[in-house]
């Protein structure tokens, strides 16, 4: 192995009185692929920000290849040899792919002017060398899909020829083939003596890619070692700080027979092309299928957020879903996938975000009854253990998992009869996931029905009473009871030769 090394000792950083890092240590050697794991809010992002020069640590020492690493800007960090593929992506949407890949290291610059042709050629060569196909370097990044952007973010980091490559949740939007490509690149990088620091929520990815792992919890490292010595259960225990028996709660066997929601020929072309189904009271219906087969359109149509045709009956009354307001009035609530852009008003407080959804039930003649509001929110928030300083705190200051809980609190405060959950556990840590599952069960006990889409098949299998698999905007398969297995859902999603005859 090469002589490169990265050592972090006693790193501390606090933001406005909240300690994100409380003396974290980390040590990696050249040629290592090192996983950094932990729950949301464990300090991973902060550690990444310090290493990439985006924020400065309050105290502690970092040494890179035996020299002290003391930088005060992202540019200095890159020059010192640490390149980061950021989770939130650092690509500029309005600049071209080529400009983004070579930002600040353009191949030919004369008197401040960039030679566009040389730049383009360099970009073509780089993409070719990294084995990336089908991206025109002359097009702006805004035209690229999320997956392409994530691939480009990695290409950009590799292009800096760093000694440390940080990958912050690089796989969230990647297709399986793209994940394969990424892992190949990371292995090559490590074999050439580099240090790859890999941050991910997906334990199976870490196990297949990394050779070392460090677990963070509450801003400190609570365990570290070769991956072979850390079983999955041990890692989860370290992350949570307590042993976990089971993530998924037991399914109750009590089943109601009355139908709460009857959907007939619901369509919203071109994505959704006619779905007919019914949902019983207290039932959890999972929605599977490959990504982009009309799941989003189905959820948005049921929530009245896109125009649709067809008939939807909720609780015996036909609902005209022309606006989310109509859906909410009919007792249909939605937990969206992207909490930051669709679910929360980031500049409002926790209190306002929770009560926004049910203002009509706590307001009189247009004025909010603050004591009713408080009672309602206290109840909702206490059910969910939202980690926050107080109700007036801005939602933007909460961690991702806690933001998701605030949405849940708001939705639960509305006491919906049909709850739509669109990939609500994406990017959420194991602990919060378990809590969300528990809440789903509780809601069903109290008579709410849930329609939920998930990209995580394991989740569908363990939480659903029934599963529908969508393909090309229509229901391709209806699975019940013992039919609900991982392999069956995948087979039905993929279709073709893998698909078994139904019935």
């Amino acid at each position: 192995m090469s002589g490169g090394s990265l050592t972090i000792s006693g790193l501390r950083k606090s933001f406005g009185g909240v300690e994100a890092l409380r003396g974290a240590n980390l040590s990696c050697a050249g040629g290592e692929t090192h996983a950094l794991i932990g729950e949301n809010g464990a300090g991973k992002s902060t550690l990444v920000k310090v290493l990439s020069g985006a924020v400065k640590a309050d105290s502690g020492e970092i040494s890179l290849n035996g020299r002290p690493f003391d930088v005060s800007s992202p540019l200095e960090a890159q020059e010192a040899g640490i390149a980061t593929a950021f989770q939130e992506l650092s690509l500029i949407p309005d600049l071209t792919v080529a400009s983004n890949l070579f930002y600040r290291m353009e191949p030919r610059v004369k008197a401040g002017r960039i030679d566009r042709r040389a730049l383009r050629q360099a970009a073509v060569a780089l993409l070719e060398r990294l084995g990336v196909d089908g991206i025109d370097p002359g097009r702006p990044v805004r035209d690229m899909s999320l997956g392409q952007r994530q691939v480009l973010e990695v290409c950009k980091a590799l292009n800096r020829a760093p000694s440390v490559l940080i990958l912050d949740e690089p796989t969230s939007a990647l297709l399986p083939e793209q994940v394969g490509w990424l892992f190949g690149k990371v292995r090559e990088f490590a074999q050439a003596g580099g240090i790859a620091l890999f941050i991910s929520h997906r334990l199976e990815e870490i196990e297949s890619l990394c050779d070392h792992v460090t677990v963070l919890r509450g801003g400190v490292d609570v365990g570290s070692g070769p991956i072979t010595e850390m079983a999955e259960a041990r890692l989860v225990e370290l992350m949570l700080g307590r042993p976990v028996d089971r993530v998924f709660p037991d399914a109750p066997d009590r089943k109601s027979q009355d139908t709460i929601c009857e959907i007939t020929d619901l369509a919203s072309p071109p994505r959704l092309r006619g779905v007919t189904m019914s949902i019983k009271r207290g039932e959890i219906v999972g929605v599977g299928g490959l990504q982009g087969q009309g799941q989003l359109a189905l959820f948005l149509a049921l929530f009245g957020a896109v125009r649709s045709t067809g008939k939807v009956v909720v609780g015996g009354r036909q609902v005209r879903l022309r606006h989310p307001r109509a859906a909410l009035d009919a007792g249909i609530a939605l937990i969206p996938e992207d909490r930051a852009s669709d679910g929360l008003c980031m500049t409002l407080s926790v209190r306002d975000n929770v009560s926004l959804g049910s203002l009509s039930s706590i307001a009189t003649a247009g004025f909010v009854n603050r004591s009713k509001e408080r009672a309602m929110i206290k109840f909702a928030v206490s059910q969910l253990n939202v980690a926050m300083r107080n109700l007036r705190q801005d939602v933007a200051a909460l961690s991702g998992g806690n933001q998701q809980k605030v949405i849940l609190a708001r939705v639960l405060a509305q006491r919906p009869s049909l709850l739509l959950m669109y990939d609500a556990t994406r990017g959420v840590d194991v602990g919060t996931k378990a809590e969300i599952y528990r809440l789903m069960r509780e809601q069903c006990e109290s008579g709410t029905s849930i329609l939920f889409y998930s990209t995580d098949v394991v989740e569908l299998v363990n939480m659903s009473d029934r599963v529908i698999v969508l393909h090309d905007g229509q229901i391709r398969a209806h699975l019940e009871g013992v039919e609900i297995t991982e392999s069956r859902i995948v087979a039905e999603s993929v279709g073709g030769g893998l698909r078994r005859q139904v019935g």
Partner: protein
Amino acid sequence: MSLAPGATTPRRAVQWRPSLRISSGDLPLLMAYVYVVAMVVAVLIISPALLDGPGAIGANFSLVVPLAAVCFGQTLVMLTRGIDLSVGGVISAGSALLATHLNAQGWAFVPELLAIVVLGGLIGCLNGMIIAYTSIQPFIVTLATWSIWDGVAFGVLPVEGGKVSPTLINATSGNIVGLPKSVWIVALLLLVWRWIRSTRFLDDLVAIGSDETRARLLGVRIPRRKVQAYAASGLLAALAALWVTGQTQSGSPDGGDQFILASVAAVVIGGTNIFGGKGSAASSTMGAIAFLLIPILVFALNLTSFWGIFFQGLILIIAVTFNSLIQARSRG
């Protein structure tokens, strides 16, 4: 379903969908050319003398020069997601000074000319520093400095008039190699844009306007770039003041105010995104020309002049609606 790859790595990541030549998000930047061509054709059909009569080109372009200069600066500022309302104050103050204190003749006028330009740049610097180092909105900062410099203009020259240097009057009229100077200046502005377009400076402005947080992660020196953009805007506004004052042969303590809304309108008609990240000074120049063609078209149609303002408002709404539709589509 396992996402983990086997021991073999595919050489190619994935085959992605093929690409079009022009990004649909860039369409707004082309629309101003369409507006200009359409209106020129319309005027040429109805009343060609308004555009190709004797001296018509020079007269029309001398209105374009100051607006195009101000729009150039406004575009740079808007790329960073800012706005510069103080251009009005800079032009007014410049005009007042040129009609009172800075009106020497011959070579003695050169240092005075430079003084005006430097002053414009410094005023822009000041805007930029306030905006870059505080979190005050550019709109508010430049609204305040506009008022301040208009106040200075009225202090220097309380009423329209004064005495303008004959050297400046001569310099802003006449032809060079058969073409009016005004045409040359507009061409020069377009050339400068062509050059600036490929600089790191411009990429940095786009990065800042596109996403300031990411720009910081990329190592862009944000305050410095903002100061430079506002300085350029102030400097170009001072150049506009020189042209306007020489052309009208008198100073005006509030002559700059009309350029504020006109420049914002022209830049937006040119397709520059008011929320930053996308823009072109060439398109803004076309926007300025389109904006100034409207009164000519109204005149050609034999309508009363108030229809000019009416249609200027209308084209602005049309352009903005079109741009936002395009943006909504290219995002979705």
